[in-house]
């Protein structure tokens, strides 16, 4: 009988033994702990030291030798497809340069720039004063490059009859003051607000430019029941499926399965404009912004060549192909 029970509670016996062993250690094996702790600390110290050395070595490699270079590029999910397309094209013409591109959000990219784990950070917003201070503290001098422009499209389900909103209505929807589509000329349906997570530059831009209408004194935040989805695709798929939903996303990400809403600005509330390359260039579409790349220090060597190429006509044509707006 006892044996059956023993098999039964194997898991717990192990746990209890662990607890017993733990108390035994605390009382009698303190020496072993100290020795082991010492070893671990030495190992950890070794790890951090080699970790700190690595980026410096990378930098010197890149600046001193132009024969082969490795550029790390991380950040904004809005820019990631564009950055990938650029990297692929650039590596075809210059096979000696290899570029790795990852997403994660503007905040993620800028914090890895500050932690020296990436060479170029992509950001869909400008670096914040706090981030700049942290970078200066880490001995860096971040440089800003405007690499493209982007419109933020407001999207709804194709079944939703609403096809235009003033920017003020949009602001009130996301503040939680308008909760039914009826109030803006739609059907009697609840409004489900979708947004990117707070680490997204698009989120921060939308908060400033739309919810607060550019007023820096305003401390309003997103309505608390706004759904914060971890990816652009998450927003597109929920809007595609749900006729109650409203979302926003970079123009380059909008697919034909969702409907874009025409927006009017504060000064011309009865002129509704759909986002496109043309309306961004002539500034008639109001929710548009610059896209940035940041380097740790004034760029040299392979990084400088790459950034120069990005601003060339060839690279800016890729910008147009992907649905963004070129700088020049």
């Amino acid at each position, binding site marked *: 009988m006892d044996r059956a029970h023993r098999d039964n509670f194997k898991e717990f016996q192990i746990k209890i033994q662990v607890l017993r062993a733990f108390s035994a250690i605390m009382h009698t094996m303190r020496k072993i702990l100290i020795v082991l702790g010492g070893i671990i600390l030495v190992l950890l110290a070794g790890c951090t030291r080699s970790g700190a050395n690595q980026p410096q070595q990378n930098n010197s490699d890149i600046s001193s030798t132009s024969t082969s270079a490795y550029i790390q590029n991380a950040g904004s999910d809005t820019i990631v497809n564009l950055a990938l397309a650029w990297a692929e094209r650039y590596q075809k013409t210059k096979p000696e340069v290899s570029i790795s591109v990852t997403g994660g959000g503007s905040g993620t990219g800028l914090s890895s720039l500050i932690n020296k784990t990436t060479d170029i950070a992509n950001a869909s917003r400008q670096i914040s004063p706090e981030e700049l201070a942290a970078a200066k503290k880490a001995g860096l001098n971040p440089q800003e490059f405007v690499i493209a422009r982007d419109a933020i499209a407001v999207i709804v389900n194709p079944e939703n009859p609403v096809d235009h909103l003033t920017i003020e209505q949009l602001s009130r929807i996301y503040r939680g003051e308008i909760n039914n589509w009826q109030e803006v000329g739609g059907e009697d349906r609840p409004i489900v607000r979708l947004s990117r*997570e707070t680490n997204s530059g698009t989120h921060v831009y939308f908060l400033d430019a739309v919810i607060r209408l550019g007023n820096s004194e305003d401390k309003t935040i997103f309505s608390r*029941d706004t759904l914060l989805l971890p990816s652009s695709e998450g927003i597109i798929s*929920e809007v595609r499926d749900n006729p109650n*939903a409203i979302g926003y996303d970079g123009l380059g990400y909008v697919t034909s399965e969702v409907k874009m809403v025409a927006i009017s600005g504060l000064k011309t509330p009865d002129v509704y404009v759909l986002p496109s390359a043309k309306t961004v260039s002539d500034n008639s579409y109001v929710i548009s912004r610059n896209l940035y790349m940041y380097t740790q220090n004034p760029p040299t060597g392979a990084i400088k060549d790459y950034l120069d190429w990005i601003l060339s006509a060839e690279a800016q044509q890729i910008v147009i192909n992907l649905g963004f707006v070129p700088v020049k």
Partner: protein
Amino acid sequence: MKRIKISGDSVISGVIKVCGYSSILFVTLILLFLLREGLPALANVPLSSLFSTIWYPIEGYFGLLPLIGGSLMVTISATIIALPFGIGTAVYLSEVAPNWLKEILKPVVEILAGIPSVVLGFIGILVLVPFMRKAFHLATGLTGFTGAVLLGLIAIPTIVSIAEDALNNVPPAYRQAGLALGATRWQTIWGVTLPAAKTGVITAVMLGIGRALGETMAVMMVTGNAPVLPDKWNSLFLPVRTMTATIASEMGEVSSGSQHYQVLFFIGILLFLLSLMINISASLVSTRQRKRAERILS
């Protein structure tokens, strides 16, 4: 000869000892790290802010209540969903199913446990979310309930596999005695086998709860992540944000040492305490039960 043997033995037992102790050391180091990074949050962020109901860290709102409430609600609902299915499947496998079926079903359940949760989350987004919205006429399918159903699915294999082992370990003499006394099969299962395997079954449930509490990816994908305090009767059918999802989605952006960073580690401490509480209560239940069983049998 003899001496060499003894020294070889002691070397090996020494190595094993070091392995055992080092794992404890690692756990202690992790705990110390958590405490070192997370506890300053209590000093640097006012308590009134930590226990408010607004979570919007980029503007300095650090209310933890919506996150704690979200995690608890989703975990408890997931347990309620997983419990009958998990124990039912375990009873069927151990007591009712013919041997050939059992040999197919048990590995299948164990494969289910091996499916990465991000895959389940993906299926959840494409299938479960639209289904929930239409079935319950909700504003959106990205709700706490969707997360609970998915978490239930994730917890079921854990519960089945451990509970089934526990039931299998009940001596056949118990069942034979029950049947010999004229009890039906169901009466034997409900009155004899399950009570005899009670502790193992409770262990299974506790481990299932632990699995549900710690799950991140699948929950993050389907619960909508809106930090709203679940204080209404229909909160389960509204979007919620869990503690694990918050850590996962925000850890990448914080600069180390900031208030936001400390609060995220503080959430980690809370999660650690919660799972510790689950483990301790499970082991308390099992030791108490064992003592009673031993007393009766002796």
